[in-house]
């Protein structure tokens, strides 16, 4: 038996060098990663003497940790040795390169390699390699380790004299000479594109900043008039994703570092549609972010304008692990996520690689994702599957992607522009003044927005238990409700018109009922979505309830008509009467709907807005005057100009407050509408519901009991009811009450609205004084409240009766006819 061993023929060099790394750009990328791993804040890639092949040079230099003699001999020259397996992290970075073959990229790029490297407080070291030494064919006995390479230690003066480089504290310079390929401007530009896509645009950590600088001085003149996107000289930036955030519909999501939650934000042109925090169902995934941008025809043209290339050529969804891109994922023609094949099945319902760009960023501390090689991506194991699975149960990427997709496909179908992509692109690229206002779409924005809210719940398709927090854009919804109320109103008007003009059969009324019903259903959809997740849904509930009532009324009408039709003559007369009644009711419904719309958009909003502004103005006054007082009383010398300036501000803010309070206490302050037919029972119940939250917060239990069977419809100003209830509640609170009970009862001709509390009560002897302007029992009160209430009630034609006992409580009874 003999002992034998492996030998490594010199030709091994090419196998792991220029024959393995077949792409020049990838070669440069590997070397850039080495600079990154050495802790350098920047790497400079410079091309020189490109016109003469033998003298052409590519220099990659960094200011990282550099190498010592030991490092060169035992690590750099040690094929396949990679410390990166042993050290996960260095210099605060998770190491990017692996496989230990990055150095052979140099072989790919040029015939000769000179390395200058220096560690801090070490000396300059030089190594020269002629790769041809390793290309002797047929030499069976020539091993790779037989080739001797000179390692020189040189002084700084020698370094400066012999090379054109400036001295440095630590770092590495790779000087690759006699480049194998011809590097034209175009080729270098293509390298730049790759480098742009290499860097994670999310460079939010200044400490770990890593800049890539490209230099090709010979082209400076050639490209001096080009746009930045077409220049090769300069810092490589990846700004495209930031610019996109404002323009396009996009979805961003992240799995938290501890893997417990997923936070997702859907944005449409810079407006947030919803933010959602839910449980993370993927046990293998953590510390991952997904950014997906949808490009409509306009966006695609903008993309080209910004970057100089078509979005299709740029690629689609990229994968970054620990800060560096994993090719070929996302490159033009690559469909690692299977979006194209999926799209093929679903025809128009799915988005493909041409309509989206984006990235997945993984912070992988434990090497959960196993990188195969620079061109083959990542091992397809459980972790990878949980990220990428394209059918049910969907992986994380598709979980997020499908939400964007639904939103785009169902929610904003209108994003199909009127002209085709090519025409659009020409238009936008040739017009330097093109902006977003020139965009034209097939549908109008209301239709679009309506659909948006309708699909929001479908988009989310989540179990309530999994949701930790969901916020849907409130104003967005409120605007939609207002527009919806408008539409409903228009429908009602149309119906009223019809009723006026002809004799209607039950069949006709049936048609109207169907129309009304669909409006109801749509509103119910809003209501369900919003009330499930939002805090303030009273408006929708009110509108919905009104419609329900109208619907039911008409339903009643319909059955009554059917009965009467049995009798011939009296049937026709009765129908005539019923028609008139329905007309009346519809008019009322119209005005009620008007009322609701107005409540939301006019009065209640106005008052809320006023209160908001009063809060701000008084806060500002408080701050400035307190600050002024503090400064002056501490002896600070302030020049009179500054004092005057501050007083001016205070006076101005105060005038705002005065203005608002004038408005609020004026008798006919309703600028926009008159008093309206109001169902008092319902209105008060709604209003109480509104203030329950505030009440409970203050420790008061509110109850509302309606013992009234005949709804009271009266012409009233809703805002006055609000003020009435607010004031009485506020008084009870000031009196230290813990209960505030509101009830409606009917007695003979009167409806009695009663407010009872268990506060400290009022001295019976003082009862007659309470309405006097300025009467107050607390030092904080202004005494305006009850005075104003009396005014309101007088105007309403209502009587007020107050009973109270000291220490027991107070009851206000309002008698309405």
């Amino acid at each position: 038996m003999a002992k034998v061993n492996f030998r490594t023929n010199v030709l091994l060099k090419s196998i792991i060098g220029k024959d393995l790394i077949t792409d020049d750009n990838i070669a440069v990328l590997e070397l850039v990663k080495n600079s990154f791993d050495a802790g350098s804040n920047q790497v400079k890639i410079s091309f020189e003497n490109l016109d003469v092949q033998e003298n052409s040079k590519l220099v990659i230099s960094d200011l990282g940790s550099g190498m010592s003699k030991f490092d060169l001999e035992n690590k750099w020259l040690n094929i396949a040795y990679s410390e990166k397996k042993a050290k996960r992290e260095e210099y605060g970075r998770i190491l990017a390169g692996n496989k230990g073959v990055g150095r052979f990229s140099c072989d790919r790029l040029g015939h000769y390699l000179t390395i200058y490297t220096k560690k801090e407080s070490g000396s300059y070291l030089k190594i020269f390699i002629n790769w041809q030494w390793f290309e002797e064919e047929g030499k069976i006995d020539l091993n790779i380790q037989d080739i001797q390479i000179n390692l020189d230690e040189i002084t700084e003066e020698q370094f400066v004299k012999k090379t054109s480089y400036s001295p440095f504290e630590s770092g590495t310079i790779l000087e690759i000479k006699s480049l194998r390929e011809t590097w034209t401007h175009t080729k270098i530009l293509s390298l730049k594109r790759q480098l742009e896509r290499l860097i994670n645009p999310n460079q939010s950590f200044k400490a770990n900043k890593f800049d890539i600088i490209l230099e090709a001085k010979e082209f400076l003149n050639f490209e001096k008039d080009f746009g930045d996107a077409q220049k090769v000289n300069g810092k490589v930036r990846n700004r495209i994703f930031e610019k996109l955030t404002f323009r396009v519909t996009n979805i961003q999501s992240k799995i938290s570092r501890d893997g417990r939650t997923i936070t997702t934000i859907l944005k449409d042109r810079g407006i947030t549609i919803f933010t959602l925090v839910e449980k993370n169902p993927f046990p293998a995934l953590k510390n991952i972010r997904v950014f997906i941008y949808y490009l409509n025809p306009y966006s695609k043209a903008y993309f080209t304008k910004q970057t100089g290339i078509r979005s299709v050529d740029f690629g689609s969804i990229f994968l970054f692990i620990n800060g560096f891109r994993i090719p070929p994922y996302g490159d033009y023609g690559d469909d690692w996520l299977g979006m194209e094949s999926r799209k093929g099945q679903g025809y128009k319902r799915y988005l493909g690689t041409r309509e989206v760009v984006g990235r997945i960023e993984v912070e992988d501390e434990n090497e959960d994702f196993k990188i195969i090689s620079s061109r083959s991506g990542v091992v397809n194991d459980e972790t990878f599957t949980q990220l990428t699975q394209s059918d049910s149960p969907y992986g994380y990427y598709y979980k997020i992607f499908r939400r964007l997709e639904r939103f785009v496909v169902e929610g904003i179908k209108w994003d199909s522009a009127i002209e085709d992509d090519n025409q659009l692109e020409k238009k936008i690229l040739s017009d330097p003044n093109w902006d977003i206002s020139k965009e034209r779409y097939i549908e109008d924005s209301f239709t679009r927005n309506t659909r948006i809210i309708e699909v929001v719940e479908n988009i989310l398709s989540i179990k309530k238990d999994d949701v930790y927090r969901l916020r849907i854009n409130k104003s967005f919804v409120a605007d939609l409700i207002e527009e919806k109320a408008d539409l409903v109103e228009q429908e009602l008007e149309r119906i009223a018109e019809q009723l006026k003009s002809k004799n209607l059969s039950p069949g006709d009324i049936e048609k109207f009922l169907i129309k009304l019903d669909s409006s109801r259903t749509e509103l119910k959809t809003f209501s369900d979505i919003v009330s499930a997740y939002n805090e303030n849904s009273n408006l929708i509930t009110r509108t919905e309830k009104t419609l329900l009532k109208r619907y039911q009324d008409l339903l009643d009408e319909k059955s009554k008509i059917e009965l009467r039709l049995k009798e011939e003559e009296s049937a026709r007369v009765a129908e005539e009467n019923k028609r008139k009644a329905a007309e009346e009711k519809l008019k009322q419904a119209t005005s009620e709907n008007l009322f609701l719309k107005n409540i939301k958009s006019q009065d209640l909003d106005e008052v809320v807005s006023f209160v908001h502004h009063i809060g701000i103005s008084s806060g500002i006054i408080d701050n400035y005057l307190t600050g002024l007082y503090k400064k002056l009383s501490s002896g600070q010398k302030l020049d009179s100009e500054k004092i005057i300036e501050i007083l001016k501000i205070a006076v101005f803010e105060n005038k705002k407050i005065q203005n608002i309070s004038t408005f609020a206490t004026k008798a006919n302050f309703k600028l926009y509408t008159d008093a309206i037919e109001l169902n008092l029972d319902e209105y008060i119940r709604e209003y109480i519901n509104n203030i329950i939250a505030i009440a409970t917060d203050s420790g008061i239990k509110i109850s509302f009991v309606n013992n009234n069977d005949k709804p009271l419809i009266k012409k009233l100003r809703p805002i006055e009811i609000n003020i009435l209830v607010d004031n009485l509640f506020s008084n009870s609170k000031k009196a230290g009450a813990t209960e505030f009970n509101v009830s409606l009862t009917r007695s003979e001709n009167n409806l009695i609205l009663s407010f009872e509390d268990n506060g400290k009560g009022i001295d019976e002897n003082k009862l007659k004084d309470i309405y006097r302007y300025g009467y107050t029992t607390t030092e904080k009160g202004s005494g305006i409240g009850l005075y104003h209430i009396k005014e309101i009630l007088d105007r309403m034609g209502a009587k007020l009766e107050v009973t109270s006992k000291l220490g027991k409580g107070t009851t206000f009874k309002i008698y309405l006819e």
Partner: protein
Amino acid sequence: MRELKILWVEDDEKFGPSIHFRIEDSLIQNGIKLTEPILLGNGEGVWETVRDLEPDIIMMDHNLEDVIINGANLVIEIRFHNNETPIIFYSSEMGEKLSNLVKNENEVYISKRADVHSELERLISDRFQMK
């Protein structure tokens, strides 16, 4: 003297400066100087501003008028990007429980508008004071 940069996401442009005016003296006595308040009137570009200008404290008004999105959403968005800048989140309106809206987000302090000045002073003294 330590300088602090404060970002105000608040639609009234006088409010931030008035708070600075009120508290700047007692801060200077404790070695803290406030730079000119950075004012952002509505929600647009809040994350980009935070990322680029790196304020030390963010003051977030919940009710931003004339704006589609409100303060709570902006808080969630800022935290989405792993930013841990302390936020004082306030509102004039009662009844809405601000704390519910930003439950589980770190470093968010709830305040009434009327108490903002004292909340800010407290935060500065806890976090940034040179002890």
